[in-house]
Every structure is written in C-alpha cells, then in structure tokens.
C-alpha cells in the first residue's frame, strides 16, 4: 500500500497539473473511474455471488454459471449509464464527440469477456472459502492505484509503465480514453493483444467454473 502511494503521488501527481485543462483532466478521471468501478464492483461481489443465490444452486435446477452473466450485465448497465453522463458532460463543456466513439462496442465486448472470466473464477473460488471476499477488499484498493485511473500511463517513467501495462484494466482505460477524449483509435497491435488475453481469461474462467461446478453444490 505504502509503495503504491509513494509511486503514485511522487511520480505522477506533480505532472498532472502540467498542460491539461480542468475539464480534460476530470473527463480522464471519469473514464478511468467508470471502467475501474465496473471491475471493482464485480471483484467485490463475485466471491459472494453463489452464497447469495444458494437456493438457486442447491434447491432448483438452475444453470449457476448464468449468475455471472446477470451480475456482469447489471454492472455494465450501470457503467453504460455513467458513460451517457460522460457524453452529456462532453457536449456541455464543449469537449465534443469524436468519430472514434464508434469504436466503443469493439472495446466493450472484449472487456465484458475479461470481466466475465474474472467473475467466474472468483465466483468458484469464493464458494470454497469466504475469505476470498476479504482478500478482495484489500487487493482492489491497491489495484486502483496500480491502474491508471488518476493518471495516464505515458506520464510514468518507462520502467514503471511497463509493469502497469500488465494490468489489463489499465490498458482498457487507456484505450477508452483514446477513443473518447483524444479522438484516435488505439494502437491496433496492443488492441489485438488485449483482445486475445481477454478471451483467454474468459475461456479459463469458464473452464474453471464448469470444472468445479458439481463440487460447488456440495461445499457451499
């Protein structure tokens, strides 16, 4: 925790003020928060999801993997509403809307896959031990600062930025900023890489959940 605070506030914050208007800066943070809140809400909820729906799992014939779908759709609906607010804010403050916004669905789709995979994984893990929920409560805040929510990756020295690039949420935030604020498409090679990794997470999460699905009924 101390380490993340140190890096974030010593390296990035002083550079924030330079060269950006208040609204630009606010919009950047807002996009970052929309994406990250979507992730964090589900990260907090996922381990408890099966416990909340224990009756569905144990007492009725119900495909429990759909619980992840509904939770994800719910979170994306909230995210979508926030995004509309952002668009309205852009119009009002004269930021304007870029044509690159049309690319949004191509970012949302792989992001949803990534999130679904994560939810499935933690949903299964959380069924076995409730401690996962407590661990998430301490990991997510750290992750928040390790994600370019309040800053952007190119403000960082390269040796730190490299490690933060491994955080997919951060990559998504940067790409969302690119298409909404800068009016340019993301680097296509980076985009392809992120899509592939997201799909891998989705696939792995699904396999993990389905593999332990039958065991979960007995342990929950």
């Amino acid at each position, binding site marked *: 925790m101390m380490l993340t605070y140190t890096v974030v506030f010593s390296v990035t914050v002083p550079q924030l003020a330079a060269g950006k208007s208040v609204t630009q800066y606010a919009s950047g943070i807002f996009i970052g928060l929309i994406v990250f809140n979507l992730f964090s809400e589900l990260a907090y909820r996922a381990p408890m999801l099966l416990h909340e*729906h224990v*009756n*569905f*799992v*144990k*007492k*009725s*014939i*119900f495909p429990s993997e759909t619980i992840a779908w509904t939770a994800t759709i719910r979170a994306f609906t909230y995210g979508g509403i926030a995004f509309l607010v952002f668009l309205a804010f852009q119009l009002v403050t004269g930021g304007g809307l870029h044509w690159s916004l049309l690319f949004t669905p191509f970012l949302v789709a792989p992001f949803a896959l990534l999130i679904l995979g994560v939810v499935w994984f933690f949903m299964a*893990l959380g069924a*076995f*031990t*409730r*401690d996962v929920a407590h661990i998430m409560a301490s990991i997510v805040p750290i992750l928040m600062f390790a994600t370019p929510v309040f800053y952007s990756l190119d403000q960082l020295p390269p040796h730190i930025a490299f490690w933060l690039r491994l955080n997919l949420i951060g990559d998504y935030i940067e790409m969302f900023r690119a298409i909404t604020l800068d009016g340019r498409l993301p680097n296509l090679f980076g985009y392809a890489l992120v899509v592939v990794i997201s799909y891998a997470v989705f696939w792995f999460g699904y396999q993990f959940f389905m593999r*332990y699905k*039958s065991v979960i*009924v*007995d*342990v929950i």
Partner: protein
Amino acid sequence: MSSEPIIVSQGVGKAFQLYAHQNDQLKQILFGLWKQFYKEKWVLNDVCFTVSKGERVGLIGRNGAGKTTLLQILCGITRPTRGAFSVKGRIAPILALGSGFDGLLTGRENARIGAAILGLSRRDVDACIEDIAAFADIGPSFEQPMRTYSSGMLARVAFAICAHAKADILIVDEALSVGDEAFQKKCETFIANFAKAGTILMVSHDLDFLRALCDRVIWLDNGVVRLSGEPATVLDAYRAAMAES
C-alpha cells in the same frame, strides 16, 4: 397404467467430503493431487429402484437418511459419486420452501421468475400466471412483496408454480406440510390428477398422507433402500422401527 420406467436408479452412491476446517476445501483444490484433506461420508450407498410412468411414489426415512440428497441427484443438481441414474422427462422440483424467491419482489413477480426457472417460456408464463394466482389463492397478498408472506403462503405460491410447470415428473420434498387443511386438500386433489399423466416422487413425514396418495413407498435407511412396496406394508414396518428406536 403403463409400466414404462421413468426414473431408474442403479446403485447410486453419494459421498460428501467432510472438512475439519473451512479452508481445507480450498487446499483440497490446490493440493488435492498430493494430499487428501477430507474424510468421506457416504450418505447414499447403492440405491436401486425404478419408478414407472404414472406412479406416485413416497419416500420415507429418518432424518439424515439421504432422502433430500437422493432427490437432488435425480434432479441433476448434484452428481452421484458412483452408480448411474436416468430420468426421462422434465422435472419440477419443490426441494425447499420458497427456494429462489426474492423477498423484495411481489408474489406475482416471483411466480414469473420461478416459472421461468422451471423452463417455461415468457408466453407460457403469461398464459398461466392467472391460474397460478388462482391456485395459490392468497388474495391481494399476491401483489405484495414476498418478505411479508407467512411460510404457508410461500408454500402455496411455490406449489402453485410447480403445479403449472407442465412437467412430466413432480419431485416434492416435505414442502406441503405447512399448508392449511384447505390447501392440503387442494394439493391432494392435484397430485391425484397429476398422476394420470405424470409421475410423482415425494418425501414426507406425514405417513397418513402417503398412505392415502401413494401407489408405492420406498423406505430409505442409512443410505440404502430398506424396504419398497405397498404403502401399507412399508409404512407399518417403518412405524414399528420408529417406535423401537
């Protein structure tokens, strides 16, 4: 009555994993290849029986005999550790009162969700929602949030949904005992009618209820079928065994 087997259970056995600590479950997943963290407890052992189409079968046994686990296996909710079973047709299970009901939603909304979970399409639900309301017969409470319901009212709605699910097999786990006399009468009539087209498997501790409604009773004891046959014979033997212990 045709004798086409609908439910066949061949040597079904189920072992639960007993853990000394909660987190041993996680350790078992991570390191299960190297070390076993649980003790096995066999709640079902070599259960064999057949239920034919149109039969009304009662399931009895003392608490912990494995009745609910057996029903869960037949519903496909949990897998047997060994043995095989087959079920032909669609099942409507009432395994617990108000399972899957959301206390904040009204009876009507919960009935819609419950019917959807049982596999009815939106159109089917629209078609039968009024019938469900009429069958549950709880008046204006049907439009109230379910957290305000008594357990009897919950049972009425739960049973009403399953009764309209157009299932081939009805599996009932002690759900009817909380309803009042009038509702129990209604259920008995329904079950008697249902058996003309479908198959029923029910668990109950109300022996007179089973005697009146079942064609056959299966007595489950310590995870095995101890006796199966005419309701009168099995229930008398069961009653005698209960009196002894």
